[in-house]
């Protein structure tokens, strides 16, 4: 065994672990953001105890995250229990897009939520969809965390 080889291997292992740590810290760095999606509770309201009213999206994305699906399953269970309630899904975008495209992407986000609720047994005639695009931000900041809170679909009781 020559010493140089051992040193080199140690160095490689060291490098690798450094890279891994870097990745891990990057993901957690902001606390309330996970790969661009808001995970905090700051702006969230509740339709009933334990039933959050909104889900969040990544930039330019309209697919539901695991956390969003969990929230929507809770909403579906609540809607099944309260069969007279109808809701409006209000889709929103952040300010970093053109106004018209943002209106369209808000509509698509609200429809992602609607589709998921329907697969959990909620009839489409209890759900209407409305997009505000970038017109009604909840957070007026101009930074990635504020934008992540604004990319959302909110379920609002309609009756």
């Amino acid at each position, binding site marked *: 065994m020559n010493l140089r080889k051992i040193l080199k291997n140690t160095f490689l292992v060291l490098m690798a672990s450094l890279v891994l740590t870097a990745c891990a810290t990057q993901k957690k760095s902001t606390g309330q953001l996970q790969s661009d999606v808001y995970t905090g509770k700051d702006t969230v309201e509740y339709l009933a105890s334990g039933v959050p009213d909104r889900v969040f999206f990544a930039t330019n994305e309209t697919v539901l995250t695991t956390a969003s699906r969990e929230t929507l399953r809770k909403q579906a269970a609540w809607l099944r229990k309260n069969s007279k309630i109808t809701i409006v899904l209000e889709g929103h975008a952040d300010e*970093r897009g053109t*106004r*018209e495209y943002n209106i*369209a992407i808000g509509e698509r986000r609200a429809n992602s939520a609607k589709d998921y609720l329907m697969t959990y047994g909620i009839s489409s005639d209890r759900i209407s969809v409305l*997009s505000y695009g970038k017109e009604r931000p909840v957070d007026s900041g*101009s930074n990635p965390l504020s934008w992540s809170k604004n990319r959302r679909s909110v379920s609002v009781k309609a009756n």
Partner: protein
Amino acid sequence: MKNTKFFFISFLMILLIPVKSFGLIEVDITRGNLNPLPVAVSPLSIDEKSRKNFKELLKKENIGLEISSIVENNLRTSGLFNPLNKDAFLQAPDIANLKPRFEDWNLIKAQALITGKVSFDDNKLRVEFRLWDILAGKEMMALAFTTVPSNWRRVGHIISDKVYERLTGEKGYFDTRIIYVAEEGPKTNRIKKLAIMDQDGANNKFLTLGNELVLTPRFNPTSQMVTYLSYFRNLPRVYLLDIETGMQEVVGDFPGMTFAPRFSPNGKKIIMSFAKDGKSDIYTMDLENRIVERITNHPSIDTSPSYSPDGKYITFNSDRSGYQQIYIMKSDGGNVKRISFGNGIYGTPVWSPRGDLIAFTKLHKGKFYIGVMRTDGSGERLLTENFYQEAPSWSPNGRILIFYRETKTDSKGKGFTAKLWSIDLTGYNERMVMTPTDGSDPSWSSLLSN
């Protein structure tokens, strides 16, 4: 919507002396103009009796001076002309209008001179004006108008257009209006109203009260109609508004949200997006027979459509490639072709009234740009970079773009503003367009008089 009848009052225009065609002064507007042409705008002369009559009628001390100030301001903001300080003028307005002493005007370095005369004539406003080439010592143009006195600002704009056209060889854009969205209140709950003003910011008027959210008004190129998006009763739909009468109606009977409206070049159709089940497609509605046609049918978001000036093609943005990019197609929806291939995402394409260029918004590495490209996507040129700006609209002569900018807020989320800005196609002469409140979504009208 009060009395906007003045659009129908025609201008009586007389050519005093035939315009001589030999080339005198010329202003090149195809390049950034770093040496604006020095021009002297002499106050229009007025006799004492006319001055008093107009003072009583229009509450302006000297209407001749007022009209010449409009001309001066228009020429200055174009960036192509440098109106000289009136204090340096040696010749009195009435004498200059008869026959300028060219040496005197040459002395103050004027290369062109505008003179004229205003009179109160049978309860009408009569204006004549002349454009002189100082170096050549010749008259270049002479025109006279008669109109109702309340049209006095428009007279100033028409004179400006005539001068611009004579000196640049291109149609002017001063006798036009801008429709836009006036904004007030906190960023999280903005109050928005439709507003209209003259191109120079005068005669600002609000057309809606702010009870519902309104967005993206656009002029009909052939009439005083406007199409826009309103959230009336929380149902976002495309509306049609007649700014003469204030009459409004919903466009089409769509089972859901319509948005991103624009007129066809002949003003007879509205093209817009209809969003349903997470996809947005482009539709048209014929305003005469109310027939609705579907133009695109794709699972993607297709929006921000704009016709070519001949009506044969449509440009729009779509995320069918994964991100927002610019496409063109035939007006029946055939032959869809992507034309934007640069780095970044591209949106809000608008076809130039001259037909050769498409203006757009581009987002790249966190910055927003207003740019232009040829209709095949080649020759991309970015005119201006900012934190946030979008939605360019062309001046009717295709030389200037008006758009809006929003500011970045501070760490407390304060300091948000939205303002209208304009920039020349050359990338020069960027300036803020003043509005009484914040403003966004500007749309430029056609020339009111042709």
